[in-house]
């Protein structure tokens, strides 16, 4: 497969000025939209059964960022979510823990306490999530508060307004500033809100922009708009991280978020990961699912595989 990777040499000074950054991003090859969607659809037809399915389900559970991002979140709900993240299926302790819980910054301390000692990480959205329409100082204060409360990961949103207006350097500088505020203790996930970027070309540009600015993860969406993670836009981002590693040697993770509700969908995404980025990404350090209802479906499928009977929503927690 041809790669879209520029050489490392070409990347050394693209961020020197707004115009050089624009020249670089607009110099990336255009996306063949039809080909991209056809490939994503073709990879979605793989049949994954029996032991491979069991492996995929456990892997997917271990990659879930169990998320609650509602105005109505209470400390009690966050604690319940933390307990579920640590033991997703209390009736079967062989079930792996999820990767993280994902909450608003003011709930980080509660979440941290709920998952203490389990290895489950606490991720916090920040930077005026989900719109990102706040002054930079406010966004940075948001990030610092979450990190100070103990967040292991920060999910930031980019300024889509600036991106769509072509002010790439502003977006770049904002990401580097947030990265700095994360310090060494928190990994940074950069959310592009692909549903608002209009074109696949823009998603490819945003991916490279985020990676150049030092993102540890690139993430499709907030889950708050009509179009969230799709196989096609995730495939595009997986190509970007593959090519970025080929060019620079730096590995970046991918997190599709929003709209992934069934085990079947999750397994399709894992096929995309394996066939595009490769096995190195089949690990919850490098790939995550941002989801809330997905976990219950994965647990029901897991119970089905274990017992041979179809399970039902009465046998998993309501959240």
């Amino acid at each position: 497969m041809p790669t879209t990777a520029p050489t490392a040499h070409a990347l050394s000074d693209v961020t020197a000025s707004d115009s050089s950054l624009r020249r670089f991003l607009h110099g990336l090859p255009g996306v063949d939209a039809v080909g991209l969607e056809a490939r994503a659809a073709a990879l979605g037809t793989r049949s994954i059964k029996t032991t491979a399915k069991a492996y995929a389900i456990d892997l997917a559970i271990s990659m879930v960022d169990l998320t609650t991002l509602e105005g109505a979140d209470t400390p009690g709900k966050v604690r319940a979510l933390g307990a579920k993240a640590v033991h997703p299926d209390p009736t079967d302790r062989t079930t792996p823990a999820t990767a993280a819980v994902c909450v608003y910054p003011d709930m980080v301390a509660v979440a941290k306490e709920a998952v203490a000692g389990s290895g489950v990480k606490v991720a916090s959205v920040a930077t005026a999530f989900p719109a990102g329409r706040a002054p930079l100082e406010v966004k940075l204060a948001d990030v610092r508060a979450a990190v100070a409360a103990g967040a292991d990961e920060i999910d930031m949103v980019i300024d889509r307004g600036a991106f769509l207006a072509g002010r790439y350097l502003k977006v770049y500088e904002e990401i580097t500033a947030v990265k700095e505020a994360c310090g060494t203790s928190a990994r940074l996930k950069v959310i592009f809100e692909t549903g608002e970027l209009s074109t696949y070309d823009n998603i490819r540009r945003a991916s490279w922009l985020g990676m150049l600015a030092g993102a540890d993860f690139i993430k499709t969406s907030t889950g708050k708009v009509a179009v969230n993670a799709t196989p096609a836009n995730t495939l595009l981002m997986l190509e970007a991280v593959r090519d970025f590693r080929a060019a620079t040697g730096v590995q970046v993770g991918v997190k599709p978020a929003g709209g992934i509700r069934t085990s079947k969908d999750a397994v399709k995404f894992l096929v995309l990961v394996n066939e595009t980025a490769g096995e190195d990404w089949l690990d919850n350090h490098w790939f995550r699912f941002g989801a809330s209802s997905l976990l219950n479906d994965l647990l029901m499928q897991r119970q089905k595989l274990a017992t041979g009977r179809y399970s039902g929503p009465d046998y998993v927690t309501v959240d």
Partner: protein
Amino acid sequence: MSEQHNRLSVFKTYKLYVGGKFPRSESGRVYEVSDTKGNWLANAPLSSRKDARDAVVAARKAFGGWSGATAYNRGQVLYRVAEMLEGRREQFVREVADAEGLSKGKAAAVVDATIDRWVWYAGWTDKIAQVVGGANPVAGPYFNLSSPEPTGVVAVLAPQESSFLGLVSVVAPVIATGNTAVVVASERAPLPALSLGEVLATSDVPGGVVNVLSGRTAEIAAPLAAHQDVNAIDLAGADESLAKELEVAAADNLKRVLRPQPVDDWFATPGIDRMTAFLETKTVWHPTGALGASGSSY
């Protein structure tokens, strides 16, 4: 006349009825259905366990709306089914005659009785609560009320012999009280049941309230009986050994099980037993409030 063309036959593709849609079997399989003399009638879908799973998901999704609808509204909807059946009377007479080897006249009597049965159960929707519910006198300052509630998703194995009257006699009581149903049609004669799906789709019954599967009864019933999200099962269409096997599988999540009841005459007035079999009684203790000094709480 030279203008009179020999028309090509237009055969009907019988399909499943699941979630208000008409899918083929997920497995892609079909089986041949023939009349009592062995003449081929049509191919019917041979459902797999995944079709059963999809049907349960559809029935569960429909349960909230259907059980929450007013009893009066459910009665109106079921009466509408009878109206739609009346319009398709000729088609069902033909299908029943083929399926059961009856004369046109006898098949017409069966179809008429079937339509009347819908009307009969449609009338029961807003009366069953008065008959089996009640206000119970208790020794204390409380009201104690019992009200019948639907059980949930009910798997129904339709009778094998009576392909239409028998079918409706087991499906209508299940949904009249607010349950949703996954129906496994008669294995040998599934065509009237599959056509009933077309009637239900055009008669205000929300998609998913009734789901019709055709195929091998034993193959489809096994996953339904073991399914953790099915609340009850009616074994009318199972023979003795299959019924035993299914009852064992159903015990795991404490499903309500209605064992096969011998029915000599499907024409007879059925009584309310098939409705009460899939009702649960909810009892509410309701305080009357403290009595004031005057002796009245009002």
